[in-house]
């Protein structure tokens, strides 16, 4: 049975549940992890709320990352992260195939540029094996040159990881949240959580839109997970935002690179990569800057200069191509090597902290892990039921784009009218997004749902028209 769809936004006070009952479970944070947890809970007959400070899902760390579906070959063997990334990769790959989330299995090359890096490759191969990943292999310099003809001079060899893939970072949480909401989860946007009063029967959350009561609480607040955690009297971890700046190059650069080109990791971190995107662009980044400001998502001259210097070494011709976008995301680093997922049965509370760059890959496995912890904590989840299947719009460049689908256009000419020329987004797709379960409320939200406005012209041709459609959509 389909539940009524409940998405509430700014201005409205939070709704009362029948009989003034509290929610059974509330998830704080509608990023990729929070939406995945909400979706997992939607399988069960419990009253679940998903609360989000922003006006859209996936609007924090989840929207600005390297968009890689990791195999987990380089995780710390035996860690929780290693297990959840490995499981999550399989789950998300299968889910993506079923729902139409764009994924491209391009494979990765860890390229060694000096003797030290070359010498480190066999240990990385052994680490992959220890993580249960057996398809990796070593390539010599000639094989690397053959695989990547535009690589800069001096590559000595590489570790090939053929299953590393790129994925759409926006469609993934959107699919999770859409399915959750359609199955009865209440999504409350513009709902920043302030004070929390923990209590044995139910917690009371003070939010920007009034009080919210819940029997169980799951903290998936990403960069702010430590602040939520402290309200339970804990001092388990501190989130130190680690900024990653990235440059997106034009689609005309796409033919320059075939794989995800990873650096050989060093003590200084994972380093700067060059990767294709599912939208047909090329990504260069990220930087790794330890900060103390959880809002510092601005790019900097130094960051851009560093990326260009690294990029010139890896793929010299990339630097001659036009830049489509520059952005920065913040990873929720905790100073610990592993995820910080902890159930507190006495408190009816689960902290899901320290989910860093692998969070997108691991999201579905984290959700299942957390759901199991919740059952252990004492909440009777009941028998899970299947969710209604979902088909997401095809945003992948190599997938079936509506503007190239003659049958679709014949049934509905709006799919033959292009609005965003650079990204080839049609009137029909924009209309569908505005009428969807989770309609966009800004031009940026529309871009994450359709690609519209994300192209090389950055709105020169279509920006005003897109804004007009959003304004029209919010009036009706």
């Amino acid at each position, binding site marked *: 049975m389909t539940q009524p769809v409940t998405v509430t936004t700014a201005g409205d006070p939070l709704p009362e549940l029948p009989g003034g009952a509290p929610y059974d479970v509330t998830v704080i944070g509608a990023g990729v992890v929070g939406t995945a947890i909400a979706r997992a809970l939607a399988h069960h007959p419990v009253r679940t709320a998903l609360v989000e400070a922003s006006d859209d899902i996936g609007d924090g760390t989840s929207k600005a990352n390297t968009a890689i579906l990791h195999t987990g070959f380089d995780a710390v063997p035996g860690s929780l992260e290693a297990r959840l990334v490995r499981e999550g990769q399989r789950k998300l790959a299968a889910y993506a195939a079923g729902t139409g989330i764009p994924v491209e299995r391009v494979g990765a090359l860890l390229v060694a540029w000096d003797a030290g890096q070359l010498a480190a490759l066999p240990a990385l191969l052994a680490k992959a094996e220890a993580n249960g990943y057996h398809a990796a292999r070593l390539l010599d310099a000639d094989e690397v040159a053959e695989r990547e003809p535009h690589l800069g001079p001096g590559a000595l060899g590489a570790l090939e990881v053929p299953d590393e893939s790129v994925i759409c970072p926006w469609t993934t949480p959107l699919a999770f949240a859409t399915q959750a909401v359609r199955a009865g989860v209440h999504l409350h946007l513009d709902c920043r959580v302030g004070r929390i009063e923990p209590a044995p029967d139910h917690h009371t959350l003070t939010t920007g839109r009034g009080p919210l009561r819940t029997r169980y609480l799951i903290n998936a607040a990403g960069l702010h997970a430590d602040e939520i955690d402290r309200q339970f009297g804990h001092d388990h971890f501190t989130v130190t935002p680690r900024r990653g700046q990235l440059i997106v190059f034009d689609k005309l650069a796409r033919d320059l690179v075939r794989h995800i080109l990873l650096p050989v990791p060093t003590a200084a971190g994972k380093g700067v990569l060059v990767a294709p995107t599912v939208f047909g662009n090329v990504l260069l980044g990220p930087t790794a800057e330890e900060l103390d400001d959880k809002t510092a*998502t*601005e790019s900097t001259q130094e960051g851009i200069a560093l990326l260009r210097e690294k990029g010139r070494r890896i793929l010299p011709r990339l630097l001659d191509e036009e830049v*489509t976008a520059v952005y920065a995301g913040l990873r929720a680093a905790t100073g610990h090597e592993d995820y910080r997922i902890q159930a507190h049965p006495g408190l009816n509370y689960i902290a899901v902290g320290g989910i860093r760059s692998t969070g997108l890959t691991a999201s579905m496995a984290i959700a299942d892990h957390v759901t199991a912890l919740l059952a252990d904590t004492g909440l009777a989840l009941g028998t899970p039921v299947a969710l209604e299947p979902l088909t997401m719009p095809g945003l992948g460049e190599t997938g079936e784009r509506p503007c190239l689908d003659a049958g679709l256009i*014949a049934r509905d000419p*709006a799919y033959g009218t292009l609005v965003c020329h650079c990204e080839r987004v049609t009137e029909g797709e924009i209309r569908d997004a505005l009428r969807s379960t989770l309609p966009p409320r800004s031009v940026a939200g529309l871009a994450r749902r359709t690609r519209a406005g994300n192209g090389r012209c*950055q709105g*020169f041709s279509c*920006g005003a028209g897109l804004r007009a459609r959003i304004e029209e959509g919010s009036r009706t």
Partner: protein
Amino acid sequence: MTRRERSVDVLVVGAGPAGLGAAAALAASGVRRVEVLEREQTAGGIPRHCHHKGFGSRRTSGGISGPEYARRSAAAATGAGAVLRTGITVTGWAGPRILDTTGPGGLERITARTVVLATGARERPRSARLVPGTRPAGVYTTGELQQAVHLHHQHIGSRAVIVGDEPVADAAAGTLRAAGVEVVARVTDRPPVRPAALEPLHSAPLLTRTAVTALTGRPRLTGVAVRHEDGRTTTLPCDTVVFTGDWIPEHELARRAGLPLDAGTRGPAHDAAYRTGEPGVFAVGNVLHGVESAGTAAAEGRALAVPVLRHLATGDWPADRPAVAVAAPLEWITPNLIGPGDDRPLGDRFILRTGRSLTAPLLVVRQDGVELHRRRLLRPARPGRPFHLPAGWLDRADPHGGTVHVSLD
């Protein structure tokens, strides 16, 4: 369902001033099937949203507004017998002169005896200029600003900074004023072209030799951080910023076809007859050089009729042609290939751009060590504005020789 297949004599991609000019002249010259494809719903190109006068003038008169110019250009093309189809997007090439299209009526595959690329140019947005900072609302190019104000009547903001000092920056200022937005400053990293005392009285202060170093504010712009050449920095408080000029040809189709581009213009390399590196594919207007005036683009379009007719009649296409290359501070020159025969560029002169202001520059043209031409220009040359090199020396160039180099002496 599949693609409808059709064929035409001349397929023009883009119904801006150049494409419409070409279509009008070709149809008037008796080419039977001339078709113009325009991806926007309305033909006319950038003039559609340029609500200032000065279009179609001969300098002496005030001319007409952009939208009126766009309407007249479209009417001239259809009046001459060309077929104009709007809302049709070319999505790619199926062969050297075969284009795939999408429109509300479905998918087509159009085979043309001759293809004319007239896809125009756009201003580089903030991201392509690598301006760091936050990603706030309130950031525009002139093109987006004009459409927001003139086509959609949207609210813009209250205080704006304009980046750039090319003529298009004046158009941006006019649009902002029309929208009730105060222009608080204009910023350019170039030196002043005239003494501050000679700046128009009512215009906002012009900060020269000043680079934009960051945008601040979220979710709305709150300021533009700038740095003067001498190291002084400040932040200009504003809620709107318009990045003007810094044009780049819309060269996607040209590149997808594998047409060689000119390193300076980033448009297709071409000769005086607008022939590209691919037989049967011409290019005209601002896809060759971002950006010349609508009048120049239209004149190029009209001038295309003769070489296209000749090509339709003979099928001839030159193979290797020597390039014309410029040295810094010159940025580009167009045409940038030397064709065989006696084709002359429009107005019998080449168009150039310089990266810095030049007072009476002495231009030298050399090929294979031989000096073909040496001449001091009487007028100063400024960045972002055209200046010209007479084409008289073309007779002395060897169409089978090496690259022709144009430099300052």
